[in-house]
């Protein structure tokens, strides 16, 4: 018979349609409106998984996201998802699910042997046993533990689905759509508030979904909310983090109820919601009671059994025992009985109560002052052991379902993240949210106001107050559900039933933590609730101990002999329920992780076959290989062209900062170690900038374009940092200086024309302007026109050759670049890339990123002549600290391989030693290249004794690769140390 446990009538399922699904290879049937859990129950499936540590058989324990036991793998291959609670997985046609943590099969599991050895697997077992020997951990213990204990398997393929991020602002965010949430949303909405109503379930209504008597009210509220244009309703959306300043995170499962997302659709959406006011109507979660074997399939929270009967029309069992410490749970007994499920006994831990009398009046057999002391049955409950709390032998009550209610705990996870500290409520035997510290209020069961009518009233008030706090007074008065509350007797805390024998009383079903483990933690000194949590892993599983967290705390309190409010519960942290990494990443994956910056000449580089490299965000041409060229060949060819003829290089990525104002000169004097206020207009000067701690921040040339107008260039890598550094000092340190700053990096393309034929090339390109040495000397700045486009010409050189940098508004970039290439064709011009540029600067001995690494001073880099003697500048005082003035600090030198054998390569990062086997490092190699002028490996290094070692023969060793190269220490300026070429 199909769906043998499906009740004949009732429920919110669509019986007209059959959904086919598979669980562990079995073909089963369910209906739209089912969760995987309710459909499994309908089919009589009780055993759905094995536990984490002991591999004990486990069934379905709850009907919601708090589920600790019924975790399954959903789907297959790239879409396989582990650890999905069957209780929240919405059934769809073709759904494929598999149990976890079992081998070779669910019913016959080899790992269950762990349970026999339980006495050897106590809390803290991993810490104690596997601490020594350390090497064993990685090779022996961890692989075994990983195989034996664990959850499901993640997909090994790339996630094929798309995710996205959404940002929303609202006046009032209502979390939860039960009676309180609906009333709150309605009240706030009718006051004119922009409302977001988020519900984790696929159906709106929360607890109302199990209350057919109130369904008309539920529908009326939803209809009214849907009429309000400013109310947005988000089903399948879990609000899972409450952050500072009323920013909340939520995950919307857009397509998880479908076999796969629709084409171009997203699977999940991560919402960042900025709310003026928040109403937390998250309801309450029923608690377990720790009694021996309380994890057997067939033991279930009472409210879950009721939900399965009422909402899903499935019978979680045929013969039930109810074990409770409160009156509310009697509703479960009454409901199950109405559904045709036999109630064998109601076991109440209290001496008496109003509900006991009521149940007896209705003909139920009630055992007050009693408790369930054990379960008979392994893979399924066969009977419950019931005994009086006053002593005496336990009797066996045959049953296949044991409904447990240890009372209700408000779902205050979000409230406590605000972080309002939960407060103990003795009357309700639970923690309730503390005084709000953010713009939020809890409503209904989420703050201990139980019952449909009471919760709705509370929610209505909260919604109205939230709207008012957001500045929207008034609103309609809505009809609230009427409910005659049954005369209720107070709950009496019942946390644990003491075991007589071997049975395990679990406080955390998912992590297999027992009440005994908590006591062990206390005995061993882990008595703080946070320590006990970590020692036992209680509450650290994916369900975060939602059903047993408080029970564990209570067991700890009893062991400490203290009141539970003094023990407290561990801090709740985001995320309230697990969230996929995909949703957090959103669209920012792969190529979209960060933006790409392209030079205005990018298209030309691509068309001309440049090999591109990402440097920071920039894509830059490394070199332009010709047909058949590989390895160093194109780099050496390009560099040689610059040394012998002329080359053209895109340097648009250099940072450019426009500095203007009457005080621009004095401002730059304070930023740089050298002076710019004395620089004449039309001239450029090399400058060095320190951090206030005395280390070099950046270097570059600065040009004076007018009396009150400078243009600063920075290195590509430091452009953003230098601008921030300048803004900080202009705005906060010297606000009295009249100076304005603006980045113009993207507005100007810049290209270096370098080589002995650079002047001839540029002269041919620039119409009507004399570029002779007299007219535009080294470090001169001029304006001109190239092929009709305005240009600035800076006679600066990074290569060590006669060189110019030509800047033009970005839109003219390619036009000017082509014009220079055309003009240089007669002189043998070639474009050169980043590699040749690096080669040339190392030959010339210019410092760059590898040398200016944040740990070097101007003195270390041989730039001490740049430090002015008078006047203040950033870093001046701290650069004079004795430690930084120590002459033994490594300083910049050049190194050259003695051999011209390029196979004996010099490597950046190599250590410099005085003999190959010497272990004392004298310094390290910062930059290396093959030299076109010296025809061997050369480099720059930071060396103890620095330039005083000129002429010494030392060794560059790279032990990781067994490389030893004999080198000579030289000036950093391998090429043209007299600096004659740049002035040619």
């Amino acid at each position, binding site marked *: 018979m199909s769906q043998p446990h499906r009740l004949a009538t009732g429920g919110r399922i669509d019986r007209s349609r059959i959904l086919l699904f598979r669980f562990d290879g079995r073909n089963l049937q369910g209906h739209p409106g089912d969760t995987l859990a309710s459909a499994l129950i309908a089919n009589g499936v009780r055993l759905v998984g094995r536990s984490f540590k002991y591999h004990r058989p486990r069934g379905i324990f709850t009907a919601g996201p708090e589920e600790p036991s019924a975790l399954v793998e959903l789907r297959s291959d790239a879409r396989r998802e582990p650890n999905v609670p069957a209780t929240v997985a919405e059934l769809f046609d073709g759904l494929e699910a598999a149990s976890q943590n079992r081998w070779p099969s669910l019913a016959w599991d080899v790992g269950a042997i762990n349970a026999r050895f339980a006495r050897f697997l106590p809390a803290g077992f991993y810490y104690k046993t596997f601490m020594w020997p350390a090497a064993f951990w990685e090779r022996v213990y961890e692989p075994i533990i990983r195989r034996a204990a664990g959850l499901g398997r993640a997909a090994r393929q790339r996630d094929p689905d798309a995710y996205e991020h959404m940002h929303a602002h609202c006046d009032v965010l209502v979390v939860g759509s039960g009676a309180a949430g609906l009333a709150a949303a309605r009240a706030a909405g009718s006051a004119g508030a922009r409302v977001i109503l988020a519900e984790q379930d696929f159906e709106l209504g929360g607890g109302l979904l199990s209350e057919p008597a109130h369904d008309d009210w539920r529908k009326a509220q939803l209809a009214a909310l849907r009429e309000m244009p400013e109310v947005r309703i988000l089903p399948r959306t879990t609000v899972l983090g409450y952050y500072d300043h009323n920013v909340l995170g939520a995950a919307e499962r857009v397509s998880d109820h479908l076999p796969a997302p629709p084409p171009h659709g997203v699977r999940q959406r991560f919402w960042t919601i*900025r709310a003026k006011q928040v109403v937390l109507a998250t309801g309450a979660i029923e608690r377990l009671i720790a009694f021996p074997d309380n994890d057997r399939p067939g033991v279930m929270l009472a409210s879950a059994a009721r939900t399965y009967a009422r909402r899903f029309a499935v019978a979680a069992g045929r013969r039930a025992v109810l074990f409770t410490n409160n009156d509310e749970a009697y509703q479960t007994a009454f409901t199950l009985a109405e559904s045709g499920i036999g109630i064998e006994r109601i076991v109440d831990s209290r001496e008496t109560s109003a509900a006991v009398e009521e149940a007896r009046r209705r003909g139920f057999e009630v055992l007050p002052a009693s408790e369930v002391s054990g379960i008979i049955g392994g893979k399924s409950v066969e009977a419950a052991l019931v005994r009086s709390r006053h002593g005496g032998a336990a009797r066996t009550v045959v049953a296949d379902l044991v409904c447990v209610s240890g009372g209700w705990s408000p779902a205050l996870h979000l409230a406590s993240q605000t972080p309002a500290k939960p407060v103990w409520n003795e009357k309700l035997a639970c923690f309730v949210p503390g005084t709000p510290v953010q713009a939020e209020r809890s409503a209904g069961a989420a703050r201990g106001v139980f019952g449909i009518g009471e919760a709705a009233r509370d929610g209505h008030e909260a919604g109205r107050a939230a709207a008012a706090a957001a500045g929207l007074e008034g609103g309609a008065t809505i009809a609230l559900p009427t409910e005659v509350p049954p005369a209720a007797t107070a709950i009496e805390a019942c946390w644990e039933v003491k075991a007589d024998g071997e049975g395990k009383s679990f406080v955390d079903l998912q992590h297999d933590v027992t009440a005994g483990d908590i006591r062990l933690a206390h005995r061993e000194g882990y008595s703080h609730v946070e320590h006990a949590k970590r020692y036992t892993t209680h509450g650290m599983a994916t369900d975060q101990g939602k059903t047993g967290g408080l029970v564990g705390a209570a067991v700890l309190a009893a062991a400490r002999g203290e009141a539970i409010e003094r023990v407290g519960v561990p801090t709740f942290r985001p995320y309230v329920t697990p969230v996929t990494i995909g949703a957090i990443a959103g669209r920012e994956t792969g190529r979209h992780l960060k933006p790409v910056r392209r030079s205005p000449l990018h298209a030309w580089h691509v068309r001309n076959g440049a090999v591109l490299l990402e440097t920071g965000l920039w894509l830059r041409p490394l070199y332009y290989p010709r047909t058949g060229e590989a390895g160093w060949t194109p780099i050496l060819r390009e560099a040689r062209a610059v040394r012998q003829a002329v080359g053209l290089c895109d340097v648009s990525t250099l940072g450019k900062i426009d500095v203007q104002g009457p005080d621009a000169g004095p401002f730059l004097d304070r930023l740089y170690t050298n002076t710019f206020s004395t620089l004449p207009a039309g001239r450029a000067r090399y400058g060095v900038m320190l951090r*206030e701690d005395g280390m070099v921040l950046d270097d570059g040339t600065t040009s004076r374009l007018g009396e009150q107008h400078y243009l600063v260039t920075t290195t590509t890598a430091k452009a*953003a940092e230098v601008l*921030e550094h300048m*803004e900080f000092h202009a705005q*906060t*340190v010297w606000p009295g200086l009249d100076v304005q700053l603006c980045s113009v990096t993207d507005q100007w393309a810049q290209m270096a024309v370098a080589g002995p034929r650079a002047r001839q090339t540029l002269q041919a390109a620039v119409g009507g302007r004399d570029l002779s040495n007299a007219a535009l000397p080294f470090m001169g700045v001029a304006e001109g026109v190239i092929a009709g486009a305005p240009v600035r010409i800076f006679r600066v050189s990074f290569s060590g050759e006669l060189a110019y940098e030509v800047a033009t508004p970005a839109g003219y970039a390619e036009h000017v670049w082509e014009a220079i290439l055309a003009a240089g064709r007669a002189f043998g011009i070639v474009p050169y890339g980043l590699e040749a540029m690096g080669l040339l600067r190392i030959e010339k001995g210019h410092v760059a990123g590898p040398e200016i690494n944040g740990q070097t001073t101007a003195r270390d880099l041989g730039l001490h002549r740049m430090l002015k003697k008078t006047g203040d500048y950033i870093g001046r*005082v*701290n650069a004079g*600290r004795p430690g930084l003035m120590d002459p033994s600090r490594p300083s910049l030198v050049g190194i050259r391989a003695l051999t011209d054998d390029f196979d004996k390569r010099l490597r950046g990062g190599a250590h410099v030693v005085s003999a190959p086997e010497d272990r004392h490092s004298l310094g390290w190699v910062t930059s290396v290249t093959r030299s076109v002028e010296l025809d061997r490996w050369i480099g720059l290094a930071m060396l103890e004794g620095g330039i005083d070692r000129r002429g010494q023969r030392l060794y560059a060793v790279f032990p990781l690769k067994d490389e030893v190269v004999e080198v000579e220490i030289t000036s950093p300026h391998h090429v043209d140390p007299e600096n004659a070429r740049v002035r040619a």
Partner: protein
Amino acid sequence: MHQIDCPWCGVRDEAEFKYRGDATVTRPAAGAGADAFHDYVHTRANPKGWHAEWWHHTGGCRQLVKVLRNTLTHEIRQTARAAEPLAAPSPETTPT
């Protein structure tokens, strides 16, 4: 996520800002000596409670904003332009 009320732009998300440190330190005069500059760079009170800080609106107007923020609760009580004074940070801290 902090929401910072930029005096130039209005309320903006923390992601648009870059934290720039203690706004109560001032750069010593040029002749103040090594100890003063050492303290300026390295010595911070690191208060638990109210703290005046610089937040640089790098993803917006690029102005440095003075923010009076509680390092314990992350509450922001006041923001001001760089040249404006902030109400003196109160020594009060919120008890844990």
